[in-house]
């Protein structure tokens, strides 16, 4: 992977000037490459990673396993994309194993998510089964621990 992408994945807020120094490139070149990645759709967006448990909000999240009947043309793609377009769905993956799709779904309440499943998801032609589990607590997300482990101070000067 391009080292620039790795650096942006680690911290998308890094300035072009610093990125340029780290990569031994010109600042303009860094800006141009980021623009190109955005235009090509390699970079899909920039988000803050929150510890949702610390944010006051009415929100629940569920993981839903979905079984689908594949279609003669296109397999799972048409149905998976159709399901993905619901705004309640924050992530959707085609999986190996028992279920076909794994969805991450958000709603304001359990009832919200339940009605999404029963009224929207389960009624789609081709969806044969769903299994919903609610998130209770987040320990790690997007590669980041949600609690900072105790910092163990380094000596200030060592040889």
């Amino acid at each position, binding site marked *: 992977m391009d*080292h620039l992408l*790795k*650096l942006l994945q680690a*911290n998308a807020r*890094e300035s072009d000037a*610093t990125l340029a*120094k*780290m*990569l*031994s490139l010109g600042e303009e070149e860094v800006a141009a490459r980021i623009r190109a990645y955005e235009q090509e759709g390699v970079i899909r967006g920039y988000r803050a990673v929150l510890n949702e448990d610390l944010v006051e909000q009415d929100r629940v999240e569920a993981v839903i396993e979905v079984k689908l009947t594949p279609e003669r043309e296109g397999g799972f793609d048409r149905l998976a994309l159709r399901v993905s377009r619901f705004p309640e769905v924050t992530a959707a993956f085609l999986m190996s194993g028992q279920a076909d799709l794994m969805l991450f779904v958000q709603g304001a309440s359990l009832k919200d998510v339940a009605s999404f499943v029963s009224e929207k998801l389960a009624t789609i032609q081709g969806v044969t089964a769903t299994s919903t589990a609610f998130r209770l607590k987040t320990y790690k997300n997007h590669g980041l621990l949600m609690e900072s482990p105790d910092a*163990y101070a*380094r*000596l*200030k*000067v*060592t*040889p």
Partner: protein
Amino acid sequence: MPGSRSRPEGRVARHVREAPRSGIRAFFDLVSATPDVISLGIGEPDFDTPWSIREAAVYALEHGATHYSANAGLPKLRRAIAGYVGRTFGVAYDPESEILVTAGVSQGLDLAVRALLDPGDEALYPEPSYVAYGPLVAFAHGRPVAVPARAEAGFRIEPEALAARTNARTRLLLLNYPNNPTGAALPRPAAEALAAFACARDLTVVSDEIYAELTYDGEPHTCLAALPGMRERTVLLHGFSKSWAMTGFRIGYACGPAPMIAAMTKIHQYSMLCAATPVQEAAAAALAGPGAEVAAMREAYEARRNYARSALADLGLPCSRPGGAFYLFPKIEGLGLTASAFAVGLLEEERVAVIPGDAFGAAGAGHVRCSFATGLDELKEAMARIARFVGRRRAAGS
């Protein structure tokens, strides 16, 4: 009266009493007394040990790894080391007789000089150097002979400089590339020139290659023991502190011809018995496991090196491009300050700690060591503070 036992000081052996206190130690006291310091003075990774290694240490403790191991180390660890060194450096060692597990490279170095020097023998080592070389040779009743490495030569020691200080008593050549404190790495031709010199003068080489995995610009590390004529005269010292971020574990190893390793093991069995057993289990996990994390740390260091070197260049502080380790060694002479005055001034005025270059020997004068084993945000803030300090000094000087 020196040597008098009327005071406790007089009870200390003369060669220990007379050994200099590490120059770093004095600066450490000063830094410790200053609050809110951003320290670029730390010679260890800022990363914590990869979790799989820590988990292996916990598992080992849970499953009873609380006893002595064989003096030379756990057989499975020695086999893993033999595999790693063979694969990575292209030198084959017999895990039964040619590998000794030590409490870090520091202990390996101590064992090597004690096992290989007769009293009065001379040991050459390049300066600037890690602080332990001279004193450990002196503690072994040898005579340390510092050989200045020139900034113009990228702080790589040159055979001519070694030749000028080699005589009939010269027995050992201690080398450390990639180098602490200068970051100098040894490209293959330079390594071959040193190897040829060691062979021509029939010197024993102790090569501390603790930073071997941390080389940059796509330039691979050259292991001295892998060069023609070197295996039979070289003790290779390596360990887990830097590349695996395991400094506090204190674990490393020595590889060399069986009689030399046997001699080191003889001292080790009486003085240390064995390296800590759960830590040896963690080291075995380090060699079995987290290659991707080690690679990611190296990549992070390289990006920070590029950043910090470029930032220092913007300030007019020239600095040779370090090929390895995690140190920059910029020249600060242009400001009309000694290295100590620069370091103390920067600490007092801007609360940034860098190490005066002469703490690593006289050849380091006029330079300071800046470690980039520090998070990027801190590194950026440190560079901004150094810029203010340098700006004020330039204004005052003009």
